[in-house]
């Protein structure tokens, strides 16, 4: 018996995944689209964490970014516009064994799916939610999204959008039971990867807004930030996204922010002089809905039948 078990263990250990094990198909995003960088980062995370492809699920809604699951060789669910979060919550509810990732765009998450967004944050089920925020509707060809900057041109607002954009970070920070709130950028793979990695480690819903370039419709939106990284303020803290020397070289403008401080987190979220990236807020004590929803998973058939007979007795005449 001991020998058998050793053999079995050996076999399990031999299952080593390489990056290619997570790659599927040729991404059909435009050349220069920020989504490519995020895809690469995620595949790297899967590889470095050795996530079993069969135990990993990517759920998305509709939009350019929501094509994401098609390019992963894991289980995937390319669902409906705005509905990735309730579906992902359903997937997670009784499957604590799965790694659940949600990919959603700014239209998908903060507009048509805004109701679900708010409640998913509050449920705080264990999953990583990646908001690909390119501040425009891409797939439907350049309409204003809730995060489109004021006065920006779009096909629905050719004279420029009228009102200030919605701030996804301050919204999420305002939701009770939010437990992990971060921003990163697609053009800095080091910070992007470090942020996603921290998000994956978090026991709860990790919300990561990724500022993402759309070369086709909004090529100039982020060029100011890219050309002058000092317009970005990197939030540093030992409980935050770990900063490396490479990061420090790029992001000269750095400030210390304790992610357990919600008031300061809100201040950062509302900063206008510079764009803060890093971890705004983290609370490891927030109740996790999926801990409750998975209760009773091990109930045996005998126990179920016994409970049911007891119920029938209650109605017996």
């Amino acid at each position, binding site marked *: 018996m001991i020998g058998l078990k050793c053999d079995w263990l050996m076999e399990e250990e031999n299952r080593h995944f390489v990056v290619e094990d997570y790659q599927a198909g040729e991404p059909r995003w435009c050349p220069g689209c920020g989504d490519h960088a995020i895809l690469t980062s995620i595949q790297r995370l899967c590889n470095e964490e050795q996530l079993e492809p069969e135990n990993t699920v990517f759920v998305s809604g509709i939009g350019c970014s929501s094509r994401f699951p098609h390019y992963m060789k894991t289980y995937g669910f390319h669902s*409906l516009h705005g*509905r990735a979060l309730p*579906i992902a919550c*359903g997937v997670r*509810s*009784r499957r604590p064994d799965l790694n659940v990732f949600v990919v959603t765009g700014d239209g998908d998450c903060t507009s048509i799916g805004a109701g679900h967004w708010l409640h998913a944050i509050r449920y705080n089920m264990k999953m990583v939610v990646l908001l690909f925020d390119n501040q425009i509707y891409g797939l439907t060809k350049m309409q204003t999204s809730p995060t489109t900057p004021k006065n920006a041109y779009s096909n629905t607002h050719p004279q420029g959008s009228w009102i200030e954009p919605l701030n996804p970070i301050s919204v999420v920070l305002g939701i009770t039971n939010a437990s992990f709130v971060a921003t990163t950028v697609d053009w800095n793979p080091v910070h992007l990867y470090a942020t996603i990695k921290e998000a994956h480690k978090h026991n709860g819903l990790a919300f990561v807004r990724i500022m993402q370039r759309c070369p086709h419709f909004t090529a100039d939106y982020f060029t100011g930030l890219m050309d002058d990284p000092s317009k970005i303020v990197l939030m540093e803290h030992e409980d935050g996204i770990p900063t490396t020397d490479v990061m420090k070289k790029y992001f000269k403008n750095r400030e210390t922010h304790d992610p357990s401080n919600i008031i300061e987190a809100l201040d950062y979220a509302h900063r206008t002089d510079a764009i803060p990236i890093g971890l705004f807020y983290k609370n490891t004590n927030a109740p996790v809905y999926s801990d409750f929803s998975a209760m009773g998973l091990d109930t045996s058939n005998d126990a179920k*039948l016994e409970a049911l007979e007891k*119920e029938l007795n209650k109605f017996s005449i």
Partner: protein
Amino acid sequence: MKKEKELIEINEHIVEIVSDSGEGAQTAGQMFGTINAKMGNGVWTVEIIPAEIEPPKRSKAGASGIRIRLGRNEVTNAGDVANVVVGFNEQVLYSRIDTNSFEPGTILFLDKKWSESPIEQERTAYAEALKDFAEKGYRVIEIPLEEECLKLVPDPRRGKNMWVMGLLCELYQRDTGLVEKEIRKKFARKGEKIIDTNLKLLKSGFEWAEENLTFQYQISSLDDGIDRIVTNGNQAIGLGAMAAGFEVCSMYPITPATSVTHYMASVFRDVGGFVHQAEDEIAAVGFAIGSSYAGKTALTVTSGPGMALKTEMLALSVMAEIPLVIVDVQRGGPSTGLPTKVEQSDLLSTLYGSPGDAPKIIIAPSTIEECFHFMVMARKLAEQYRGPVFVLTDANLATGVQPFPRPQLEEEWLSPPIDQSDWNPNVEPYQWDPETGLSPRPVPGQKDGTYVLTGLAHNSKSKVAYESNTNQESMAMRSRKLATLQKTLNPPAVHGAEKGELLVVGWGSTRGAIEEAIDQAREEGLAVSSLHLKFLSPLEPGIKEIFDRFDKVMTVEINYSDDPKDPYYDQGNQRHAQLATLLRSQTLVDIKSWSRVPGYPLQPRIIKNAIKEELAVAGGVK
């Protein structure tokens, strides 16, 4: 002390308790129904529920109550007119008069306190009503309801119902020991003091009736030795769902469906499952779809407006072939409609209410017992046919209470643990069998089964369809599943003779009333039969052949159709009832429909009248 009483033998009776909202008429009525069921009598109850929690007192619109039909034998519907009514005030009874619930001879027990009300309008209204009731031929018996209750409780609104229970128990010679048990069960959480007060109220009502009523009913029961349970339809749905092995019930509150989930939430934990209250109707079904995709058995429970919100998700469930059970407890529509009242108006919207072609399985229980067993069937169908299964019940079944044989639970009803064995990499995620359209389904966790499910048109590999023939092919595969299922079904059984002048076709909760009407009509010598459909999609086989054996076919439904007798309609513009529309297109038979939307269950005598009218028209044509 006991009076010499006139003993009246009865085979069946209809009792109503009608009050202002919040006076506990339904609690007492359900208890009275249970007692009768426990004593071996047939029972059917139907609740009269106002749309608001506390509507104005002493008003027609605020009437809250319950009808209990009890019989020597099995009772299958709420019946026609009431024999005995207890009114907490006279005004609420007018809502019942409006719905033709009483007839000359109906006994009305009325609280006499209104005759001594300090408010003049109330005194006048009461006196006028008494006069009116007498003119209508009702037999009014005034009772000191509030007066007696005040001797025992400070707030009679919380006591009158049990006093009435006592009265009814004496009147129908019911076993007060059983009532006592029920009271102890009902108020167990509220403590001994509350139980004691209720028992005193019960006794007071009983003793008053004993001393003051000059008659008593005697109803025997058929003791057939069958072990029965008694539940309402929504409880039966909840019990059935748990016995069927569902693990996840995802819902958003909506009348009259929610009580299914109230019941489930109270016990689901012990059966290893949980109720998810989602943020909205769309999320409720999305959550269930996600759970099901991950291999867990999930259902969602809703009513018409919720169905409307869910349509996009339901089409996803069809398109991506995700097993799912949707219970639609139908209410009056369109829009917010009649939230607490019965209608059968969601048939066509369920069938066709999704964008694109979305073939679905639709079944409709017609009894409380079927509410239980159809849930077991629904889960199996959803998994076997890899898609959504709709269970259409309605507000009549939801609150209707009927005893039925205790289900013999089976372990195989419970869902097996999810398959986590290695997937055969040579099998595609939608490897459709061209003969049946069926395909095996990989579940996350299965090695080598990874695929990306999508709501976009896709091929058997679940790859987005870029070739022109893919969509045609995959549509055909999804549609073929219905034909496959239809081949496994038996033709429905005709109630009555196999051929005749008129066949009445129904579905859902109207079964009991239709069959009772048919039985009465046949006793009168009419050549009528009825057919009740359990499957609405696919339709059961052999229906056309049955139709062909009758001169005429007519559906009876609780949804709207144009009355062909109205001068506005002709063959070109008349809109038919929903099942009739469906059957006409499927069979090419010129099917008539008789349908009404009164907000209450169809009564047998109304159906019988419709049958006679239709036969007279038929006779006229000949």
